[in-house]
């Protein structure tokens, strides 16, 4: 046998679980304000998740997928993006959506079963939540292609879970992104579980990052509970994408600390022990430790931030609950740009029912 090709998968962690930084961190990670901003987003995201779960438990929200424990991935990725990049999220990326500018009220509307939540005022070109696992990956290739065709220095960022990496269309999308050197950053938000199926049962691949090898571009792992590593790796991948270097796959290793969704009961299929171990690695406490140790983050600052986030979340929930329900006929109003006669008759029939 002659060796004709070799590959390496690297792993990057900057901020250790104990809050210390080894070696030289990227410039942004030395800036207190930047770190505090990232911290604030993560705390807000967690508060939002908790509120959403509470609303669901009391019958005021639909099925909801919390991102508890995974806040560093969404926030870190979105914070690295430019405003005119395009995000293609899965259903567990509230963190990323919040940072991009989607409001909590809009997110609650969506999860409350109202399409208007996806007509967000914020990043108008961002994609809405994608429920069928991995099916937004081909869209990301299309978005990337649109940038290439227009000669724009923008990138598409597609986030999906570990389970999604088993979907053929995610592979097809990565493959074409490689073949056409498209400006797409694929983020595998590896929270170790796809509902009840553990990561090791999805694939024999030692890493998910190596899925990129099949598509002919680079993949790497980062500690997904280290927001500094997530942000740095995403920024580098975006830079490469925008400058014609093609796609990257980043596997962010994190852990889903909660149930899969509000209709799931994770105790059926996994140990409390395992969950407990992973609580020790979670991203928010880690960054807080670092802020306290290295940047003199005070208890007062912490309390003010928590209170502020809680207030924002409460205000959003109230605004959501105060929103009047959508008009029934609205289910027809955006089916086509112009409603064909035969469907217009059905719309009229629906109106007559009132």
């Amino acid at each position, binding site marked *: 046998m002659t060796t004709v090709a070799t590959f390496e998968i690297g792993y990057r962690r900057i901020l250790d679980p104990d809050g210390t930084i080894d070696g030289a961190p990227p410039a942004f990670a030395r800036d207190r304000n930047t770190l505090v901003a990232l911290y604030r987003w993560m705390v807000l995201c967690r508060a939002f998740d908790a509120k959403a779960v509470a609303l669901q438990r009391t019958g005021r929200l*639909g*099925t909801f997928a919390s991102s508890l424990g995974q806040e560093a991935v969404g926030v870190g990725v979105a914070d690295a993006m430019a405003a005119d990049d395009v995000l293609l999220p899965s*259903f567990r990326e509230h963190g990323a959506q919040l940072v991009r500018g989607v409001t909590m009220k809009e997110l609650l509307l*969506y999860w*409350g*079963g*109202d*399409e208007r939540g996806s007509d967000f005022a914020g990043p108008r070109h961002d994609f809405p939540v994608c*429920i*069928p*696992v*991995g099916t937004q990956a081909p869209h990301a290739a299309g978005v990337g292609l649109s940038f290439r065709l227009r000669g724009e220095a923008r990138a598409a960022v597609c986030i999906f879970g570990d*389970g*999604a990496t*088993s*979907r*053929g*269309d995610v592979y097809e999308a990565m493959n074409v992104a490689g073949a056409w050197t498209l400006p797409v950053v694929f983020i595998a938000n590896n929270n170790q579980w*796809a*509902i*009840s*199926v553990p990561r090791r*049962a*999805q*694939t024999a691949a030692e890493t998910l990052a190596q899925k990129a090898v099949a598509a002919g571009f680079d993949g790497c792992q980062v500690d997904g509970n280290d927001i500094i590593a997530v942000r740095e790796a995403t920024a580098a991948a975006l830079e490469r994408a925008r400058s014609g270097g093609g796609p990257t796959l980043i596997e962010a290793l994190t852990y889903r600390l909660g149930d899969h969704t509000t*209709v*799931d009961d994770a105790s*059926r*299929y996994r140990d409390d022990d395992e969950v407990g171990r992973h609580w020790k690695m979670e991203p928010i406490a880690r960054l807080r430790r670092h802020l306290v140790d290295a940047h003199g983050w005070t208890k007062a600052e912490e309390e003010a931030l928590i209170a502020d986030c809680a207030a924002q979340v409460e205000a959003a929930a109230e605004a959501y609950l105060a929103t009047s*329900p*959508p008009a*029934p006929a*609205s*289910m*027809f109003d955006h*089916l086509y740009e112009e409603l064909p006669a*035969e*469907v217009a008759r*059905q*719309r009229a029939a*629906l109106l007559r*029912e009132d």
Partner: protein
Amino acid sequence: MARPHAKTDAVAATAELTLVEAVQRALARAMAEDETVVLLGEDIGVDGGVFRATDGLIARFGADRVRDTPLSESLIGGLPVGLAAMGFRPVAEIQFMGFIYPVIDQIVNHATRMRTRTRGRLSCPMVLRAPYGGGIHAPEHHSESMEALFAHIPGLRIVIPSSPAKAYGLLLAAIRDPDPVVFLEPKRVYRAAREAVVDDGGALPLDRCFTILKGSDVTLVSWGAMLQETLDASESLAGDGVDAEVIDVATLKPLDMDTILESVHRTGRCVIVHEAPLTGGFGAEIAARLAGEGLMHLVAPVERVAGWDTVMPLPRLEARYMPSVSRIVAAARRVLEYA
């Protein structure tokens, strides 16, 4: 290795079961009586399925025969074709019907063709199960009813139970059937009611409709979850002295049109009820056959009460999307008043 259809016990336990429990019992029965029955799907193992349709089966039959697949729907369609050709009877689950589309390629291009293509040398006795339909306030893509897509595919069977006992008997029949069957479970009915089910391995036929209620004024035809609304409508009509016949199609393909024709022959009037969008829904096929072979019996236009021809809305509006008892009653009245 296989001992198909052998009864594994003589004692038949009767129990009041929900539909999802009846599905679980039928699966357990089929696995016990035939070693070649193997279950495949996402979260069907330790989790027991997101609706618990496979609850306890991994403990009883082992992880070899109750297999959590990777998150790969196209594979869930295709792998059973290989397994079935080698003499197994795979029962694959798609978690929600909204995720079933990647399976269509394998169903059209292989599962339904293997026997024809090889002139009987290989065959494909697989079952593809999926919960379908709305009404449980689920997220987008979790509430679809797309049985019509399958009903157009030659060589397939499409079965939709409407009650626990039907689910038990029809699923057993589907698993024992030597050809591919799509088995759609009305998830809104999963826990809606209990019914006495005799767990004796008794199957129901896959080639006939069931007349649920005899009547002489109008024929109401439906299947799956909508049967409840249809029965409620017949009750409301009965209050006004209208004697409705209610037919549960149960097996959409092959269609037992004879039962429907015989009924419409007596009533002269027909309302078809389904949750799927109107246009191209399976109601069209039944109405078309009435417009053909059944025309001489019709004294009034055939009405179809169906989901609107729009995207199933998110939960806030889903109740306004689905056919309601009042829409069915109104359609029946129009048909009855037609001069």
